[in-house]
């Protein structure tokens, strides 16, 4: 079975606003790399996925924030299969 066909090891990645337009996509399912020595793919971080997806600039800019399952999260938090990860460019509401 191809890894890419296993939904239990995938993370939904979403982009918004200027970042979405710069990259040309708004969401995609991304495989978590299997953890060394086991089938549990936990341990991948938003920062790793930013690089893996070739998001620009290569090092995440200070103004961009991360949300995991629609809650603000740290760049080095652990992602789990089924998570929804979003990269949020600088906010300007109100």
């Amino acid at each position: 079975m191809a890894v890419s066909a296993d939904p239990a090891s995938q993370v939904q990645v979403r982009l918004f606003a200027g970042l979405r337009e710069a990259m040309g996509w708004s969401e995609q399912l991304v495989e978590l790399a299997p953890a060394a020595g086991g089938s549990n793919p936990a341990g991948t971080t938003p920062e790793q996925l930013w690089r893996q997806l070739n998001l620009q600039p290569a090092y995440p800019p200070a103004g961009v924030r991360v949300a995991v399952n629609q809650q603000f999260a740290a760049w080095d938090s652990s992602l789990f299969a089924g998570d929804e990860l979003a990269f949020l460019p600088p906010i300007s509401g109100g």
Partner: protein
Amino acid sequence: MLPIQLEADPFEPLSALAEWHQFLAAGLGIRPAAESHFVGRVRPSGANDAPLEALELEHYPGMTEACIASLAAAATGRHGANAVLVRHRIGLVLPGDAIVLVAVTADHRGPAQRCCQELLESLKHEAPFWKREWSLGVGRWITGNTPL
């Protein structure tokens, strides 16, 4: 009546406040001693001073609503306010149209005013909204807020 609501279409702040008053009266009976409101409207020109055709507001469906609710609950608790109302436009908003309404009731004027002010600031900086200014047919993402 939901105290927090995203509006895809133009809304009239005074109508929203009237509806909220009815909602509060049904729950509380007597009207609270202090009430503070803020209405923000789209400016006629953009960051580069060119005439603005429209402001476009993108949000993160689900997260934005939850985030506003959590900011409102935090501000209400911190200031000991009684009730809060938030209306925020999404989509294309025309110059002069209301983009945000925040209203707070409290037992005293200080908490009402401070809670209203603080909640507005947190909406601007903490709730996932992104603004794009459309001017001369060109859209430009805004990466900050106007100065306080």
